[in-house]
């Protein structure tokens, strides 16, 4: 099974009618999807770094020199992909009834004593990258830590140069914050 890049562009851009989407959903999946997907995305970003993995509507893990970083399509860089990119974002927290009711008016509104809705914005383009609804006091969720080397080496058969250790480095950021304000 194979689709043209144009078919996929139309799919991603919401230009395909439902019956065509349903057809794509029902058929066996196309093995070359990821390659074409990345090609399409690479053509659409204004920078040259190679996209290794799209991790959101605007975010990509890219190869920058010897580093792998999370980068927004506006060009803003969030740092090493093994650190939760949210820690480098702007945050707006809906933690009062007034702020929550902007989105969830009246009886739709959760209890601000128990629930906060966190919005993470790109500092470069102000895109809303993630909405996180959690109990008050919950750590920021590191939604996804990819095992990129295993992905390229074992699944795509195209190992990346200079493997990185597969580990969560987010606590380094918070520990540095603590040291700074101690």
């Amino acid at each position, binding site marked *: 099974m194979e689709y043209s890049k144009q078919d996929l562009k139309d799919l991603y851009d919401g230009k395909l009618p439902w019956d065509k989407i349903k057809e794509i959903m029902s058929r066996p999946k196309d093995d070359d999807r990821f390659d074409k997907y990345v090609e399409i995305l690479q053509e659409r970003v204004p920078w040259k770094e190679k996209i290794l993995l799209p991790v959101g509507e605007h975010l990509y893990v890219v190869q920058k020199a010897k580093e792998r970083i999370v980068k927004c399509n506006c060009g803003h860089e969030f740092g090493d992909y093994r650190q939760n990119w949210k820690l480098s974002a702007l945050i707006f927290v809906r933690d009062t009834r007034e702020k929550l009711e902007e989105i969830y008016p009246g009886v739709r509104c959760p209890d601000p*004593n*128990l629930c906060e809705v966190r919005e993470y914005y790109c500092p470069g383009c102000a895109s809303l990258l993630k909405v996180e609804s959690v109990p008050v006091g919950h750590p920021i969720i590191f939604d996804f830590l990819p095992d990129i080397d295993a992905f390229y080496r074992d699944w795509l058969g195209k190992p990346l140069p200079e493997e990185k250790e*597969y580990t969560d480095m987010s606590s380094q950021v918070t520990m540095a914050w603590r040291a700074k304000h101690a």
Partner: protein
Amino acid sequence: MTKRKGIGDGGRTLKQMLEDNSRLLRETGCYAGITQPHVLRDDPVRAELFHSRIMSSLISGRETCKMISGSPYVREMAELCMGLYTPEGDNVVQSTGIQVHIRLMGDNVTWMIENNYEEDVGISDGDLFLANDPVIAGVHGVDVYDILPIFWEGELIAWVCTVIHEMDIGAVSPGCMPITAVERGADGLKFCGEKIGTNDKIRRDFEIKIEISLDFAALFLLDRKGAIAANIRVREEVKNIIREFGLDYFKNGIRELIEEERRNQIARIKQRTVPGRYRDVVPLEIYMAQAPVSWLPAKKDIIRLIPIQTDILPEGRLVLDFDGVGEWGWHSMNVTPKGLWGGLSICIVQTMSYDGRGNLGSLLPCEIKTPPVDSLFNPSQIKKLATGIPWATKLDVFSLWCGTLGTAFYMRGFREEVFNYVSSSGWELAGYDQYGNKRPMLAGGIGTFGGGATGVGDGVDTGGWVATPETDLGNWEVWELFVPQLFMSRMLEPYSVGYGRYRSGLAIPSMDMLHRFTEGIGSAAIGCGHDRILPNIGLLGGYPGGKRNTFLVRYHNFEDMIAKRLPLIHEIGDPREFKNQKYADVIYFDYTVGAVEVRDKDLTVSDNGSAGGLGDPIERNPALQKADLDTGLTNEEISKNVYCIEACYDEKTKEWKIDEEATKKLREAKRKERLSRGVPVEEWWQKSRQRLLKKDMDPLLVEMYRSSMKLSEGFTRDYKDFWALPNDFSF
């Protein structure tokens, strides 16, 4: 001493077969030790025929059951499913229907084998077994499993099982799965692999027990007859298949179907996802402080945190870890480790194994790590607890998990497969019905809400219930014959939506009027525990849908309203105003509704939230929003405030028009607003940390975190690491 001859393959006992199968899987990594499948591969056309014959027998069996049953759960909602199992209890093929039970029914068979049924109870051709105990394996007691062994020339060669959701199992009121029941006895009748008949016939004494015990005894027994007829139909068809294909082909073929599916599932995981660690969290809210309970320790409000970690491993395995889940409690929403597989089954079938080949092999690449002992997912007191609503907990967990998997699909470019869902809520009733009878009352047509956004378009407006898609609405006119609730309205609710570049579908609040109902008690909260905290179900910049609500509307003078032809309530309308009705009092419940008095002509309202949106709402294509405005799925306020789309209604053309220029300005202004009110996470973190050090938060949350930390060193370490808390910090 001679070794006893078993009823299984080669004279082995079923227990020996089970042990051999487990050993072979362990030693080879392949199901039944099939390292080189060939029986099916040697002749693919024959193999296809073989599978189709089994599948069609199960589907026709399911239809047979629907014709015999008298319950609207079966006839209208089709909340039933069938499966064929190996002698060891491993699922080979499943019918259409509610596929949550596919592994669970097999787990009951395995349990029977492990508990020496072959010797102590006896398993013979024509024996009828019945099970519904989640302590063994199941979702909740109302899901009843009919289990039938299939013999060929004296050897047990397979099992066939049917699950039906019952109207009544003798549970305490209200309803058939009472939310505030906390003790096991309150669940109603429990069948632990009980032999209820021989020679294809139900024992008369069992029928008498049912006739004496249940208000809806006739429906229960009709369901048994339907399920047994379905099972017999499949059994006889399996014999035909053996006559046509041969016994050896059947025995090897059913095992290879599982092994082939295991391999296919690994291939799908590698083709559609990305290896790595995925994390999410869901709180389960149980507010029982105001509820009448039979056991005092249950009378309190609690919230339990459920962290969900999914590791997709390089070898194509999927490992779920619930480390950090809080403690069990005296309520009906505790889950067993085996019960978790039910939630996973339904998600796997809906998201990856939807080609009709789904079976145990779909789940073999998955692992659910044993949750901490005495947690919500592994309560040591489970045999004492009611287990009426563990489904609610599972739904909460696996609705988010679908989103996790959806994110993985998105990263691989399979954006069309992104999806998530939420659960429903509804009213259960007790009292004298329209016929003057005391009966458990829970109408099933309540699973009404749209699905989550996909990566290529809006969520399906009205069809988001993955467990039994036929549950959406059902035929309410039939339900009106069984419950004293008259259909008043099902209006799509624009404010329920999970907003995003692509939005979720819409919730459809169920509004029903109690009619000819006397001395009534009602309770609510069947599907989910999200009364005050939104589930974290927005994807990649999309918002979660709004909070679900439960209302009871009591008209000041109903007869007078009818006489004066005043408008009755048919929709939520403006969510800021719904509680302020001119001709009625609105009783609003933001807690687990235990048992409240309800009166004839009250309006019961089950107002679900909806699933998650995807992407930044201000990037929504205005053309999509115009279509929603034209069809009434949204309104001007939402368009402007959430999507930053300026639209106005053209009276002449009777359609909405988008002001492109004004929209552009609104969106630019929104970006500026975000940059001005957003703060660096570091700044927010410092303030939040100070608050946390003072434990300045709601006592319910303090207790929630304390509970998780009590059971998990890993959760405690992660929590302290994130907030950089001192080692001696505790809640």
